[in-house]
């Protein structure tokens, strides 16, 4: 039944992703040619020939499937370094974003300071007292959260 003596799975593992993809495409084109021939010459083919050609077509399609899947798996061999690099960069970005969130807390304190400034401008003792308390509490929050 096998038109082509396909290598074993172990041997296939030695193919590169790109080689597997090229083979998959070749098998697909052959399968299509067989399938089209079978449909176009349906009336002139015997039942036995129709069955045989369909079996050929399906085998070729299966080979193509196996090669396509293999190509997708083997791509890992080509990209491991890139994956590591991108993971490292992403980790650094996350770390920096975390730092920015801390800066954000510092700014929160700055905001409380501005509120205190506004209260001082307003010359209202209660507002000053309130804003001062708020600033102290923000400062304490920040200190408590610091590692």
């Amino acid at each position, binding site marked *: 039944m096998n038109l082509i003596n396909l290598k074993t799975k172990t041997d296939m593992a030695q193919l590169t992703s790109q080689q597997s993809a090229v083979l998959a495409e070749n098998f697909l084109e052959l399968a299509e040619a067989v399938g089209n021939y079978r449909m176009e010459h349906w009336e002139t083919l015997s039942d036995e020939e129709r069955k045989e050609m*369909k079996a050929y077509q399906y085998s070729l399609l299966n080979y193509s499937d196996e090669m396509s899947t293999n190509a997708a798996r083997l791509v890992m061999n080509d*990209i491991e370094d890139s994956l590591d690099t991108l993971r490292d*960069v992403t980790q650094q970005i996350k770390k920096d974003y975390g730092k920015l969130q801390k*800066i954000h807390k510092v*700014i929160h304190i700055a905001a409380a300071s501005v509120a205190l400034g506004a209260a001082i401008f307003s010359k*209202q003792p209660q507002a000053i007292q*309130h804003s001062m308390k708020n600033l102290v509490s923000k400062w304490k929050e920040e200190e408590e959260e610091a590692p």
Partner: protein
Amino acid sequence: MDHPKLFPVLGVIGLSLFFAGCVNLGRVNDYAANAAGSIGQFEELGYSFNKACQEKCQMEQLEKQQLLTKGCDCQTEKEADSVTLVIYHALKGYFEGLAKLSGNELTNYRFNALTNGLTAGNFGLVHINQAQVNACTKVSNILTQAITNGYRRKKLTTYIGEANEAVKRLLDALKSNLVTNLTRRLETQRQRTQSYYFDLSKDNAISPYEKKKVIEEYNGLMAGIDVKKRQIAVFGKGIESIGAGHQELYDARSQLKTKEIKELLTRYGSEIQDTVDEFNKLKNEN
């Protein structure tokens, strides 16, 4: 001290700093957020190597007119899906990180915190008018922008530089796995479906009414395969735009302030958004 005179001065300085600082980070943020959203459509494809294997298995059962007692062996397909998933997560994580780092969440959060602090506190007899509240808020915004924008721009420049080669290779790998290899699996399934239904249509034991039903079923299946192929193709176009946008960002990374980079990123952002819209239209057809 006469505070009404101080606030306008601070406001003008602040607004200048604010606009000078945030515009370009905003563009990077738009690009990265679009890229993360576009890549995220991977989860909506609804097709995988494992699904292709299951469909092939179902077709084999129909051909043999037998039920498989042991189920389908789709182990290698599951492995291919795992590889694709790893690539997808790495890229999505990166673009989401880029979007967060260039985003404006800090500004919004601070704005609310300060406004609440000034208006909702127990101030007793104190009256601080709205203009003063707004001025204080602006001052606070300026402080954060001044501190974080320079830092973020510097860091983004470094990260885009470090990641560019890896991003390119991973986008290529994702595109190759989906647009080339998974689409080919759809094509083999299309050929199997065509052969199977062709034979049924030629079967003299089937009545004309049943043949009509067979043809309807065939057309429905072929249309479904076609939509999936187009979805994957549109997803692939999105990947290309993301890659081109990142390359432009990389090439101009030391000039994150220039007008050109703003325009380029706007163009790629718009291209990515077009593919997202096209993808969503196809999703509704499916």
